[in-house]
């Protein structure tokens, strides 16, 4: 559906996007993750034709965006970050204007607006001025704007930023619902959101792709290592360290300061996926230590994200 080849963008001497290659299949929900300033928005803006790339090309259904920007724009719906709409217009007037620009026939405009207002929950605010709307409502109007001509590709730039938890859930629900038929690309820096909605996650850092995999695979990759937190009462720290190290060959044990008096905490890191809790317990059973806490923390997407985008 979309093919991104060696996409590069320079702002003067600053390289915002550095040779990105991507292929997005039809019907995929792709989440673009990355820290602030990683080049997410720039990438999306180039995908929509708002920015011209410094180098590289984007093919949408075999049409190059450089040669045929208008044709590609007709296939896409775009919601920019924080939905910058014309603030002095009424919601209804604004959507009518968009419908006309999107070449919707005059007699079909009203029925289309009705569908969209139901889908995005706009029926109560159709005759309000856009500058009176809250951020969440604006975002919904922006979503209606993006979906006006029922585009095959939907590009959303941080669609849930600045919304309250209920609204986030609603927007996610909408994305999932429309994602059954459409190709959706959205950027976010909320990891749980990407985990919950995307089929595939692309993480970019400093303009480069550092991970590109299906959500499930990325999660499995994350689960391959584990960390165990152990807290013990009344022990000699260095002795305990020695004993704990002998539990398994390839683990790292480190002592942590504990805030509670008489309590010593250890962090045991293992690079294998084997569950070590049993071995640790059996080892401790041989001694007269008292266990305050024994907890395994499976690595999440978050830790993968931290690792991949380190040094930023």
């Amino acid at each position, binding site marked *: 559906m979309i093919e991104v080849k060696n996409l590069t963008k320079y702002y003067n001497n600053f390289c915002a996007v550095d040779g990105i290659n991507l292929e997005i299949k039809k019907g995929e929900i792709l989440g673009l993750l990355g820290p602030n300033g990683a080049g997410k928005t720039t990438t999306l803006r180039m995908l929509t034709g708002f920015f011209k790339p410094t180098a590289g090309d984007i093919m949408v259904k075999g049409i190059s965006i450089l040669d045929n920007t*208008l044709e590609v*724009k007709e296939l896409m719906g775009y919601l920019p970050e*924080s939905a*910058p709409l014309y603030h*002095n217009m009424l919601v209804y007037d604004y959507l009518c*204007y968009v419908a006309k620009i*999107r070449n919707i026939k005059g007699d079909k405009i009203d029925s289309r607006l009705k569908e969209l207002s139901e889908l995005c929950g706009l029926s109560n605010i159709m005759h309000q001025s856009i500058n009176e709307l809250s951020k969440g409502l604006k975002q919904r109007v922006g979503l209606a704007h993006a979906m006006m001509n029922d585009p095959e590709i939907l590009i959303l730039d941080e669609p849930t930023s600045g919304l309250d938890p209920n609204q986030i859930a609603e927007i996610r629900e909408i994305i999932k619902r429309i994602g059954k038929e459409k190709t959706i690309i959205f950027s976010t820096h909320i990891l749980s959101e990407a985990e919950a909605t995307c089929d595939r996650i692309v993480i970019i850092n400093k303009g480069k792709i550092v991970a590109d995999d299906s959500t499930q695979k990325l999660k499995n990759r994350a689960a391959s290592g584990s960390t165990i937190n152990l807290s013990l009462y009344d022990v000699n720290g260095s002795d305990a360290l020695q004993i704990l190290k002998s539990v398994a060959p390839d683990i790292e044990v480190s002592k942590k300061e504990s805030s509670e008096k008489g309590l010593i905490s250890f962090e045991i890191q293992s690079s294998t996926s084997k569950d070590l809790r049993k071995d640790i317990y059996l080892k401790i059973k041989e001694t007269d230590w008292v266990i305050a806490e024994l907890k395994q923390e499976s690595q999440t997407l978050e830790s993968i994200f931290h690792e991949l985008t380190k040094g930023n």
Partner: protein
Amino acid sequence: MKQIINIAAKEFKDYFISPIAYIVISIFLVVTGWFFFSTFFLFDTADMRNFFSMLPIIFSFVIPAVTMRLFSEEMNIGSYEILLTMPVSFTDIAVGKFLAATLFSACMLFPTLSYPIFISFIGEVDPGPVIGGYIGSILLSGAFCAVGIFASSLTRNQIVAFIIGAAICFTLTILDQLLFFVPSYITDIMAFLGADAHFQSIAKGIIDSRDILYFLSVIFIGLFGTYIVMQERN
């Protein structure tokens, strides 16, 4: 073509949603009305020459005020991004906004049609210069709108856009009065570049293709400049 009309219609409506339209029209009518009628009875002639002779100067401040928001505001609130990601070309946007601004200027001129009607009660009005004057005014406002839109596309600050636009329009207006200061070999070119002489010649009732061509060229250059600025930004 359809997109141009869509954009023009939206921009034109926008003028009347905000109070800008009413303020600008009122100021324009008060200023022209006062300047015109305060000296009208001294000359004791039933014509509008006086009105048209000061129009370029007034336009060079009023028209940039009309056009200053067209691009600057969009860039400032970010809706420029929405506009450009819809299936419209740069040309559609520039021409659409230009048509809206010119149409608005025509609306601004419309109430002044009452002047020749009133004057015709006092004395015999020669229709030639009046009709020519209005044709010239539309052409002049078109040219200044194109310049103002170009100025607006340069910056996201409306005040800066207004100042740049007014400076260019004002320079074009007074250019043929500055001939005294320039070397003789470029006086001819300078004289041709000035907007005032072309406008006054049409306002006399003589519709010369050179004058029309001049205004159309200014419009074209202004819009083409806007096009280039938009492309550069992209």
